[in-house]
């Protein structure tokens, strides 16, 4: 008959292991909150309480040199730009469509007619978001749209902090697409290969 090992060695091991487990469950605080600052965290060092610092006035971060006035402001010699300063490709228009739907369609609607969801929820009572299909806006130089996104217009806020310059041109290009789409003649529509409709 084989001898059965005394249980004590198992018990000792089990006791040690569970002791370690119990002790280590309570010792994880210093790595959980490390003395570093993440974007948006707060700091007592600065008067405004924010860890993320704004640029010191006059500094130009790498890649932010804005020499090309047509591209970065939509103006050349105080006159609105009439031609998009970057190549207009299908890709650019698609990008413009996506960005337009995110940032502009809540108010201006997906067609740019000023009938967005937020407009219907009371925005229009005070100030109707612009309808892009007026004659004035259809003949407006393209730089105007860039400028409206960058600096806002009347009751509309600036979108400069959320829409980068390249995307602003993409949106401007897409607004031209919307304007064309709402003013196409049946002949143009057929030429573009649109599906046949009964109501022209």
């Amino acid at each position, binding site marked *: 008959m084989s001898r059965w090992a005394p249980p004590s060695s198992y018990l000792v091991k089990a006791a040690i292991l*569970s002791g370690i487990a119990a002790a280590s469950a309570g010792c994880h605080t210093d*790595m959980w909150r490390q003395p570093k600052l993440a974007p948006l965290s707060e700091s007592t060092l600065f008067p405004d309480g924010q860890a993320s610092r704004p640029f010191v006035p006059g500094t130009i971060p790498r890649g932010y040199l804005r020499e090309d006035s047509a591209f970065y402001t939509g103006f050349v010699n105080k006159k609105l730009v009439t031609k998009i300063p970057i190549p207009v490709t299908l890709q650019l228009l698609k990008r413009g469509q996506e960005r337009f*739907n995110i940032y502009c369609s809540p108010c201006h609607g997906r067609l740019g007619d000023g009938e967005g*969801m937020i407009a219907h929820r009371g*925005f229009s009572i005070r100030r109707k978001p612009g309808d892009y299909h007026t004659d004035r806006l259809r003949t407006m130089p393209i730089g105007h749209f860039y400028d409206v996104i960058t600096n806002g217009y009347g009751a509309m806020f600036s979108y400069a*902090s959320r829409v980068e310059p390249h995307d602003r041109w993409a949106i401007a290009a897409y607004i031209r697409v919307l304007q064309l789409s709402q003013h196409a003649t049946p002949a143009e529509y057929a030429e573009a290969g649109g599906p046949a409709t009964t109501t022209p």
Partner: protein
Amino acid sequence: MAQIFKPSANTIAQVSLLGGAIVPLSVGLGIAALSRSPANTKVGVPLNQPVPFSHEHHVGQLGIDCRYCHTSVEKSAFAGFPPTETCMSCHSQIWTNSPLLEPVRKSYETGTPIRWTKVNKVPEFVFFNHSIHVNRGINCNTCHGAVNDMNITWKGNSFQMAWCLQCHRAPERYLHENEADTAAGLTPRQQVFNLYWKFQQDGVKHLDAHEQDLISGEDPVSFDKDEIAKGRKLVNKYGVKTQQLADCWICHR
């Protein structure tokens, strides 16, 4: 020689052996259960916020895109909170007298940011990145629960290590694409956001099964063989490094 142990000692010995096994086990399981319970993880518990901001209202009903407010989510590690200016782009014109929005107006006037209470956190020794997940078409609701239904934001999942790993070990069970959207040329990233738009336009009925799970806050994991095979195709298509995805250094760097 007289007997040292009475016959009853047998029972005592057996009971204490059994007890020696059961007591530590149940203490261990108890701690494990406690650490996974909402009391510890805060899953499903809405937290107090300075302004009763409702995603149900702004996303579910108004259909505002996540990126209107969480602008950086698709291109950086952080989703971030919207600055007060973002709220004011609408609330300078609508609901301008609502007392609920008083802290927003005050913050805008004084330039001091609103202090939102953070709902989702991982410890600082964990590295997390939003953009890679969103660019692989993983919907926000996979991790955050049904945001489109939240009146006051709560935490959708525990964000414990085991929870991250259950996907990192088998991403094919979670990756998904909507075939109609893919045919229409939408990238996985665009499909993430298009889901909320489709939901707001047509309601939940017109979504596919996986999307219905997401919108209603069910765990979108697939156990179906065909679905997993499709998921595996996506894993290959995106070039996900499955061999390494559960390595410690991925999240602890």
